[in-house]
């Protein structure tokens, strides 16, 4: 359960989030939509704990614990996962080695036993197959030379392996054609579970045709100005952000 209470965030001394409040119960999928500059990316980076996103007020409670003072790795170990809009290319680090390091690091932070080599390989291969990720991709350096679709599938693979309690999908659809989008959305939908919630951050309604949210929030000027069911996305698509936001105000 994620509860964001009156969150204020400064980036480079400028206030971007100005009192954001939001609750995502377990098992639900919530979408945050909003025009450019509304604070969508700031929201996702702040939740994941990126340095430079300074919380000046409010709380981020995750299963009853305020996580605002925790490092990104501690938040990851608590089960917060950010799927990046633009996943990093890291030459020199093989995808396989990265996955193993991440899984073992989280196990260690949670005081769980690490997977042995055979278990690890079995787990990764099975998850990779589901997402149509080849053995060759796993051997290549992380995201280097991957297409947009491959990068997003790789993010989905990490999500499947790390089993977060909250997955934040930051503009999951950017850089994807419709076939790639379907494949990624299918992968995400398979991961929907009663003890896992999703926060889908997107500019366009398109993604929400494939990952259907329980609640849609509209973010504008650093706070949520409107919430509703999935029909809200269709209103936005028809009338544009300005009209809908002005009507709300």
């Amino acid at each position, binding site marked *: 359960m994620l509860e964001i209470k009156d969150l204020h965030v400064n980036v480079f001394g400028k206030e971007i989030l100005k009192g954001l409040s939001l609750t995502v119960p377990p098992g639900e999928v919530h979408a945050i939509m909003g025009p450019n500059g509304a604070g969508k990316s700031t929201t996702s980076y702040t939740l*994941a*704990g990126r*340095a430079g996103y300074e919380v000046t007020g409010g709380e981020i409670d995750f299963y009853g614990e305020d996580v605002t003072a925790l490092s*990104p790795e501690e938040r990851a170990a608590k089960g917060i996962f*950010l799927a*990046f809009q633009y996943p990093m290319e*890291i*030459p020199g680090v093989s995808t396989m080695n*990265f996955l193993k390091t991440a899984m073992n690091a989280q196990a260690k932070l949670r005081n769980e036993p690490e997977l042995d080599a055979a278990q690890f390989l079995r787990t990764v291969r099975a998850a990779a197959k589901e997402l149509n990720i080849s053995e060759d991709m796993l051997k290549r350096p992380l995201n280097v030379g991957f297409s947009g679709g491959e990068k997003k599938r790789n993010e989905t693979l990490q999500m499947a392996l*790390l089993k977060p309690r909250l997955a934040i999908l930051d503009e999951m659809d950017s850089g994807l054609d419709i076939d790639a989008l379907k494949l990624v959305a299918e992968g995400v939908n398979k991961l929907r579970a009663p003890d896992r919630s999703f926060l889908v951050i997107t500019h366009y309604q398109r993604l929400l045709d494939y990952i259907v949210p329980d609640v849609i929030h509209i973010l504008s000027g650093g706070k949520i100005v409107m919430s509703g069911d999935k029909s809200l996305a269709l209103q936005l698509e028809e009338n544009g952000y300005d009209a809908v936001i002005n009507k709300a105000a």
Partner: protein
Amino acid sequence: MAKVVSLDNLLASVAARRSEAAPWLGALIDAASEKFAHVGLPNRRIEAWRYSDLAKALHETVKVESDLDAPPALAEACVAAFENGVLDDSKSSYCAMGAQSLRKVLAEKDSPFAGIIGRINPQADHPIINLNTALMEEGLVLHVPKGVTLATPLHLRFNWSGVDAASADGRHLRILVVLDEDAEATLFESHDGAPSFATVVTELSLAPNSKLTHVRLENFAAAARQTAATVGSVGEKAAYRGFYFSQGGHFARHEALMKLAGEEADARIDAAYMVADKRHCDNTTVMDHAVPNTTSTQVFRGVLAGSSRGVYQGCVKVAQAAQKTDARQLSRAMLLSHRAEIVTKPELEIFADDVKCSHGATAGELDANALFFLRARGIPEAEARAMLVEAFLIEAMDTVENEAMRAIVIACAHTWMLRHAGEASHVE
């Protein structure tokens, strides 16, 4: 307490050595010592030593750590073990491959190497090589006859276990490796501990069609003061493959001075250096393309932490006759702290008009986006930093073909990263 190394002490030692030398050696010593006396110990007023002031470094006091890393053991190699600058036969096995001690060669009235020592790609005005020639005593000579491939590597293991109080003028070591036509050999050179002042000159003569693989590992303690030079001549269709690893020292300089002397000669150097604290690490190269159709490649990658200083000076010379030269040079440095410093100085002297010469230099920080990405997946900061540092260097280390040597190099890099890659820095 060791005496300060001074020009007077050095010249007095040269005079003593001169009086005992055979005529052929005496002539060599005379020429070198005259030039050396003229210039003295190099300081920053000499352009090539501007960023590495040896005279100043020798006057600074250094503190030798008590527990020094043990030198690496390379399985299945012939070893020439130098303990505090002296060849130790009880720890060596070089005779098995036909090598002999320099001391023995220098004592001969008429050595077959008399016309070779000091005459491979000669550096008449080099102050340190001249000093080394004038005072060389210990070292090794290896001659690989025509068509012979040495199956086992030669491990030149230099280990300095403490301050060499007996020597007021440092230790000056000379290695000579002569490969005849179609010969092949592998050299593994390791430097450990803390010499108070050492010079090492490695002369390499590669006859046509020969191939030398040369892996150098400087794994010094912080107090080490050494300046070394690899001086080579690469003949027609011969190949030099160098890999250099260094973690610097109080003063640690290595120069690769290679002459591409025959058509289709090829020299390739890959290097990785990792420097922390207040250490200094200088990599200087001169690739001298003397004839047409030769190639040289150099890729240097460095990671600098603390308030360390790295120096890369890369000079490419192309003679007027050396058409179709292909010379590439790249220096990439990653700075882990605001106080660390890298000096990069490419120099191109090109007198031919149909050549390909490229050079590039970058200096940057650890990628903050990549670091956040790894941490957001649950990888702790220190480990994430080490992963990114390793990723930056691995391309260089992967060029070491010999598996056992590569494992030693990677182990040194890991040790360094455990100690330094996680250090707090300015990356947010």
